């Protein structure tokens, strides 16, 4: 099976996020980015499928700060091809536009399966995979946690609430929004990534269609109101432990 994995960089949520002066975007000057964690799962599932059933894995990313590193790392993990879309589509570009760009790049490629992360932290205008599938007019299932080939099609499990799952059989080609790979995404040693950087080549392509009707604009960005929020308990670990026990006693949870 030939599998495409489109990936995107999102702000690292561990760092503090600031809003720009107009209040319409993040202050991106000092942001650090990391690969969307769900995309890591999509890549892992793709690599597992390749190992089990043969085929190729092609990773596609949009040009940005650390794109080359992301792509070399994917190759170090086992991807066969790395493609960079060179249009000016900075982080924060609406998913409708990214999906349109991907669709135009993919229309010239052969593939059986497209695996995307189920969502990303900045999906303001909907999830990339579903948008992409509809631009390509191929079937899609999102919130998928298991992919297995069966008789020229694939069987996938889609998660609902409460641990219930639905199983679907899907004709190829198809797009799946991966919630979780069957195993923890693998790690590529730095030495291996360095080696790949010397040997592997990143292909560059330009998407010829990035026009999409987004139909919405950001009026304001703001941090959630602190409201009542949590009462912070301070002190040494022992003092904090005492305070917690006192609270539990007051609430009648602990005698």
């Amino acid at each position, binding site marked *: 099976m030939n599998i495409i994995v489109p990936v995107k960089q999102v702000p690292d*949520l561990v760092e503090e*996020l600031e809003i720009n002066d107009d209040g319409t975007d*993040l202050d991106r000057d000092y942001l650090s980015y990391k690969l969307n964690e769900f995309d890591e*799962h999509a890549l892992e599932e793709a690599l597992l499928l390749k190992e089990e059933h043969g085929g190729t894995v092609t990773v596609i990313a949009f040009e940005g700060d650390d794109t080359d590193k992301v792509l070399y790392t994917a190759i170090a993990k086992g991807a066969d091809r790395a493609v960079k879309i060179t249009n000016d589509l900075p982080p924060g570009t609406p998913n409708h536009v990214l999906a349109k760009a991907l669709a135009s790049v993919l229309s010239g490629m052969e593939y059986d399966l497209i695996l995307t992360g189920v*969502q990303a*932290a900045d*999906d*303001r*205008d*909907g*999830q990339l995979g*579903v*948008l992409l599938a*509809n*631009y390509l007019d191929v079937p*899609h*299932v*999102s*919130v998928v946690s298991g992919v297995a080939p069966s008789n020229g099609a694939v069987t996938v499990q889609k*998660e*609902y*609430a*409460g*641990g*219930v*799952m*639905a*199983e*679907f*059989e*899907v004709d190829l080609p*198809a797009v799946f929004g991966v919630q979780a790979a069957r195993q923890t995404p693998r790690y590529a040693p730095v030495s291996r990534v360095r080696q790949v950087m010397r040997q592997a080549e990143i292909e560059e392509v330009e998407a010829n269609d990035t026009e999409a009707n*987004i*139909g*919405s604009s*950001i*009026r*304001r*960005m*703001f*941090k*959630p109101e*602190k*409201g009542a*929020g*949590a*009462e*912070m*308990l*301070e002190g040494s*670990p*022992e003092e*904090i*432990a*005492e305070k*917690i*026990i006192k*609270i539990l006693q007051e*609430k009648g*949870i602990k005698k």
Partner: protein
Amino acid sequence: MSQDVFVVAEHLQGKIDDVTYELLGKARELAGQSGGHVVAVLMGSGIQNQAGSLGAADKVLYMDNAALEHFNPESYARALSHILEQNQPRLTLIPNTSMGMDLAAAVSVKNNLPLVAYATDVQIDNGQVVATSQLYGGKINVESVLEGDSSVVSVLAGSFAVDAGKQDGSPEVETVAAPDGLDQTRVRFKNLIQPEGGDVDITQQDILVSVGRGIQSEDNLPMVEELAEALGGALASSRPIVDNKWLPKTRQVGKSGLKVKPKLYFAVGISGAPEHIEGMKDAELIIAINTDPEAPIFEVAHFGVTEDLFDVVPALTEKLKG
């Protein structure tokens, strides 16, 4: 073109999901602002009687077809696209759930409608639809203005009260014919898989100690388990712990796991992504330990600790054991 507010009803195994009632309650308020009606869209097979639980709607549009017996991303998206094409409502509210995610972005493309996702609030302000999305792991709210005469907003479950939209009644039911060839799909439903039983039922526990990514390694689980034991509670977790297979799926709290309402929810190393908060925010007492003072978990927690969990948890366990 109409001023109506449509709500896509979500159902699984013959039961309308509460998020539907949340959206109907909100739609009542919005229809008052737009001057239209509240219309529930019910798609399924042989479930017309469900319309009786959608009494908060003025009207139920019901599409009955064998291809809609079980949720199917393709047949449901085509059916909804057909209904929206015919009716062009002012606004369509779709739950931002596993099912809703397959529908909202699909009709946005198919019907060329603006979409804003992950909304926790929607208003019609001077004739404009304004949606507030919870993005960046719940750290930033984004207010968007939707253009055009018809648009779609997908709403996070737990954003609105269920009660306002949960009314029995007998709204007018209008049966809608399915589009041709709805059963010709490239996605075919096979079966439902029920969660495995046999483990502790975390929805029935009074005390839950829940672990998240901050625990760093599987080797650190026993430390938290000891705290759970000392408190007389059970161990639960956020999604990454289950994805890493450190705990079974039966312990997962949140959107794709279980919704819990214990007397005490003790969150250890959980940042509080919206998907997690959805599953635990109604706990009576929430205490959270996380080194990031900006972690969204502190928005819903009653008490917070930013000291290192590896210091606080053993100290607390020791004192509890006395």
